[in-house]
């Protein structure tokens, strides 16, 4: 079996064994949810409910504000207590809808499977469904999925690439989904194929998940009419990045600064597919997600399914509390995740991991020795050492001319740097400066 991959990249320690074999468990229903209205890229959603309103599972809480926005639904039975401002894990402020949960009624709620006439679906109804369900890219980018699936009429989409890579260390939620919800994944693929009539559907999975490769292959064999191919990939970070995955899976290169649409490709994360199945077959919008809670600082690491808006404290509690002195808390993975100052945050659609690290000594920086390991690691073929030097020298125009904005902050450069220079931090600083000052 020849394994495909992309060029360059790095091999961080994967830390996945602790949770890879643990089935997804439901978190006890929280008594209080704090649901952000802005948990996707684009405009924050607009609340349609008010303080004091009673809500039901799946009921619309906030409507999308324009095209590039996403709906937010209530995961529970309960009553809206208030709307508070608090920061999102990434640092931006957002209104959060606080719901006092009626735990018993929520527990009693059952989603009813509905019959779906696949033949009656077309592109418009599929995209409309995705929009109604409030589905966003679940790999972490949280780009509204219906936007992704609305290519301009001129674009000829012929390939769907399914992202089952999960290259971030520690995270195993996508892996578990591929094992536990294989059939639903394939149902969602068929729904999308109804709308788009793909020539090829490539399912990229890294070779460190042989059980997932096998499960998906077996399930795919039951639908010979769907042109689905499983593509085993060599383990390498950041293979889950859209452009890297497209190159690895089908050899096409997304032009710099352009979207995959340009070359006829749409990429969807496995979690996004499960959410699509939930909506079409069960009428259940995106109201919960699976998150990997792991790291040395947590007593028992788990793959937990929790309602969107679940306070992080509840997730810690469900994992038996802290273990030892927690030095660093990350939402997401260790390569691209965000460090949190406190636990006063709640689960969003994009939170794929909650990690508690005990050894988080910040390594001392030393001078750049121009080893150019960052140059060899950068999957976008950038010159990270130059970008960081330009940023430090406040030469932002030069940084931009050196393709600053093609960096997607995967962290490969800073990971390999023997001088432990905060390359990504400098690049991010320059990107922000260029954006704010419109250079």
């Amino acid at each position, binding site marked *: 079996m020849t394994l495909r991959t992309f060029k360059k990249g790095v091999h961080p320690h994967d830390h996945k064994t602790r949770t890879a074999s643990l089935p997804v468990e439901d978190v006890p229903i929280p008594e209080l949810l704090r649901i952000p209205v802005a948990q996707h890229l684009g405009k924050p959603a607009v609340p349609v409910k008010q303080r004091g309103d009673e809500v039901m599972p799946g009921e619309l809480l906030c409507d999308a504000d324009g095209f590039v926005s996403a709906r937010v639904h209530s995961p529970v039975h309960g009553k809206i207590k208030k709307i508070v401002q608090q920061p999102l894990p990434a640092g931006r402020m957002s209104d959060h809808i606080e719901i006092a949960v009626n735990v018993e009624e929520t527990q009693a709620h059952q989603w009813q499977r509905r019959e779906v006439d696949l033949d009656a679906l077309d592109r418009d109804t599929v995209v409309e469904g995705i929009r109604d369900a409030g589905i966003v890219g679940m790999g972490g980018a949280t780009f509204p999925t219906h936007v992704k699936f609305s290519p301009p009429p001129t674009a000829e989409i012929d390939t769907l690439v399914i992202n089952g890579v999960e290259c971030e260390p520690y995270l195993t939620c996508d892996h578990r989904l591929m094992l536990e919800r294989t059939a639903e994944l394939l149902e969602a693929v068929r729904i999308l194929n109804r709308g788009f009539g793909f020539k090829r559907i490539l399912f990229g999975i890294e070779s460190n998940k042989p059980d997932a490769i096998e499960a998906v292959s077996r399930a795919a064999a039951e639908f010979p009419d769907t042109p689905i191919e499983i593509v085993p990939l060599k383990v390498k970070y950041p293979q889950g990045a859209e452009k890297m995955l497209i190159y690895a899976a089908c050899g096409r290169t997304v032009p710099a600064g352009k979207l995959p649409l340009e070359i006829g490709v749409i990429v969807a994360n496995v979690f996004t597919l499960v959410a699509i199945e939930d909506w079409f077959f069960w009428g259940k919008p995106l109201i919960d997600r699976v998150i990997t809670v792991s790291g040395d600082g947590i007593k028992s690491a788990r793959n937990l399914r929790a309602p969107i808006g679940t306070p992080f404290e509840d997730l810690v509690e469900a994992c038996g509390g802290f273990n030892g*002195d927690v030095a660093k808390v990350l939402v997401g993975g260790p390569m691209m995740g965000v460090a949190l100052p406190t636990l006063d945050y709640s689960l969003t659609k994009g939170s794929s991991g909650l990690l508690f690290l005990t050894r988080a000594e910040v390594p001392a920086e030393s001078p750049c020795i121009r080893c150019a390991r960052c140059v060899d690691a950068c999957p976008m073929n950038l010159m990270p050492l130059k970008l960081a030097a330009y940023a430090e020298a406040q030469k932002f125009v030069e940084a931009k001319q050196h393709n600053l904005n093609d960096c997607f902050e995967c962290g490969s450069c800073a*990971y390999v740097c*023997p001088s432990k220079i905060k390359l990504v931090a400098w690049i991010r600083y320059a990107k922000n400066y260029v954006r704010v000052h419109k250079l």
Partner: protein
Amino acid sequence: MSARAEGFILTSSPHDSAADTTQRIMFAVVITLLPAMVMSVFYFGLRVLGLYVLAIASCLVTESLTRRARGRSPWSIADGSAVVTAVLLVMVLPPEISPIALVVGCVVAIFLGKEVFGGLGSNVFNPALVGRAFLSAAYPVQITTWTTPNRVFAFLPQGIDAQTQATPLAAARFEGIYEALPNLLFGQIGGSIGETGSIFIVAGGIAMLALRLIRWEMVVSLLGTVFVLTGIAHLVDPGSFVGPVFHLFAGGLMLGAVYMATDMVTTPYTRVGNVIFGVGAGTLVVIIRLFGGYPEGVMFAILLMNAVTPIINRYTDNRVFGAQSAKAGEGAQ
């Protein structure tokens, strides 16, 4: 509900980093040099061991004092870069170099070669070669006086140096006498302390390639250029020019190609840049060796290419992923 009173540590991603550090890289380089160092002591006696110790001490003291004078922590010497410079400087000097000349070379290498530029990472020229270049001007006699090595490998043919007291390159250039290849490989020849046993340098080079401390593009392009150009010269006029294999293993070429032209700080960033440097340095080596006033040209070739490295770096950036098709796409619209 915080686990620690002072709150969690906040840093920018990524939150993990590879185990390699500058210090580890420098000490790994020294370890790959050990075979050649040990052999040099066998060939030229315990005196050479003393030279290594003296050079390391001189370089560390020089760096520590200059760092202190610049208001920086003198403990940066722990990064090991001064040790690498010291060992390489000894290796490119003749066995009978006087201790005073060696100390002068070390001070120049560290102070003028590195610290005046701003210390590790900021220097333009290879520090060890700066020290060597200074000594060839300051001690022209000492630096061209060669001694015959001990016969460590009795099975090898008797070297020519017993009679001539010259390096194989000088003997070939000025007297038309060619050293046997086995002697070139195992170092039973006159020459600088660490450069004579090519095979031990090659072993160190293979180890460094395996540890990804150096790029094969540099070594191959440099050696390949020398091989091809001296090969052409030999084909055109075999009477005047010795064959390419001799050139590969004689003199300081192997040491220079493996340990000097691969110095991270003073050579280009990208693979293309490395090849340009390698071809340039190889060409200069051949020009100096065949037509210049010196029998050997590796030191000057590398120093000259060090000088053009910033300009190579300016024009050899990698092309961003998707760059080519971006142009094609724009044309199509």
